């Protein structure tokens, strides 16, 4: 598997993702500047956490104008796997690659804590290594992770089983306890919790490895379109 880790000005989890994919999961990966306009040759594009362009307007609102976004849309439209984590999730919703939006947490506070999650759909490219209904623990670290979508959108998300992870103890007000969800086609996932922060026992747990292992399994033998 060959992964691109996008780097926007202000991204701060890009190096962490690179480390998780390269050093821990043992896959090929490269940092790719948000100024790039070509994502040819990658099986997976990772959109990292952080504060792209400061997140000063709204999380992810400026990043969607980065030069790489056109290529990312093409990549996703062609069925390529895209995983957005935290700010990456916010960017994907702002860019319209995922439904809904992320609001400020109901506590109005940034929250950094390990959070129990339920694997709501284990039959996706991102979760096939987990058991159905399994509870895992992943860290969250965000101030704006409160998932919102209007009622019709929410109904459609549920009808298409797009929710992959739900909070066991909703920390931020997210509708339907949504912690992570895919697009309807199932090749784009956004999640607020950080799987890349849970891949080493030394750092407190390995429950996040499943996400990367699922993608490795999905890319093996799957058909890719590398535009």
């Amino acid at each position, binding site marked *: 598997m060959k992964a691109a880790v996008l780097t926007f000005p202000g991204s701060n989890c890009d190096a962490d993702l690179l480390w998780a994919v390269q050093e821990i999961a043992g896959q090929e990966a490269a940092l790719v500047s948000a100024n790039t306009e070509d994502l040819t040759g990658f099986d997976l594009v990772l959109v990292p956490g952080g504060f792209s362009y400061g997140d000063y307007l709204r999380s992810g*609102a*400026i990043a969607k104008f980065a030069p790489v976004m056109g290529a990312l849309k093409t990549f996703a439209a062609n069925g390529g796997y895209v995983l957005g984590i935290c700010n990456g999730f916010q960017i994907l919703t702002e860019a319209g690659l995922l439904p809904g939006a992320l609001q400020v947490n109901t506590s109005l506070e940034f929250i950094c804590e390990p959070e129990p999650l339920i694997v709501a759909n284990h039959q996706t490219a991102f979760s096939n290594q987990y058991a159905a209904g399994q509870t895992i623990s992943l860290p969250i670290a965000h101030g704006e992770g409160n998932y919102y979508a*209007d009622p019709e959108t929410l109904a459609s998300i549920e009808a298409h089983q797009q929710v992959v992870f739900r909070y066991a103890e909703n920390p931020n*007000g997210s509708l339907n306890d949504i912690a992570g969800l895919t697009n309807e086609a199932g090749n784009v996932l956004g999640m607020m919790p950080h799987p890349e922060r849970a891949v080493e026992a030394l750092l407190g747990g390995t429950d996040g490895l499943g996400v990367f292992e699922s993608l490795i399994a999905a890319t093996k033998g799957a058909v890719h379109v590398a535009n």
Partner: protein
Amino acid sequence: MYKAKIFVNYKQSVLDPKAEVIKHTLHRLGQDNVQDVTVGKYFEVLLEGAHDAVAAQVDTLCDQMLANVNMESYRFTLEEVSQ
């Protein structure tokens, strides 16, 4: 030159955590005459150009950048200003 005054607000169906906290605090402080609070953003943008072109440009700017239309709505006015 035009000054665009732009208001961005949560749509009514969206619960706004910031507004809730302010209202709740005011009630806790005994200001029970406060019926409702909304929190929005206010932008001013100065632009050169002809009225209609600027109006179209500001509309796109709001739709694409200043507001997230999944949860926010916007309105704006244009005022001609001298340099």
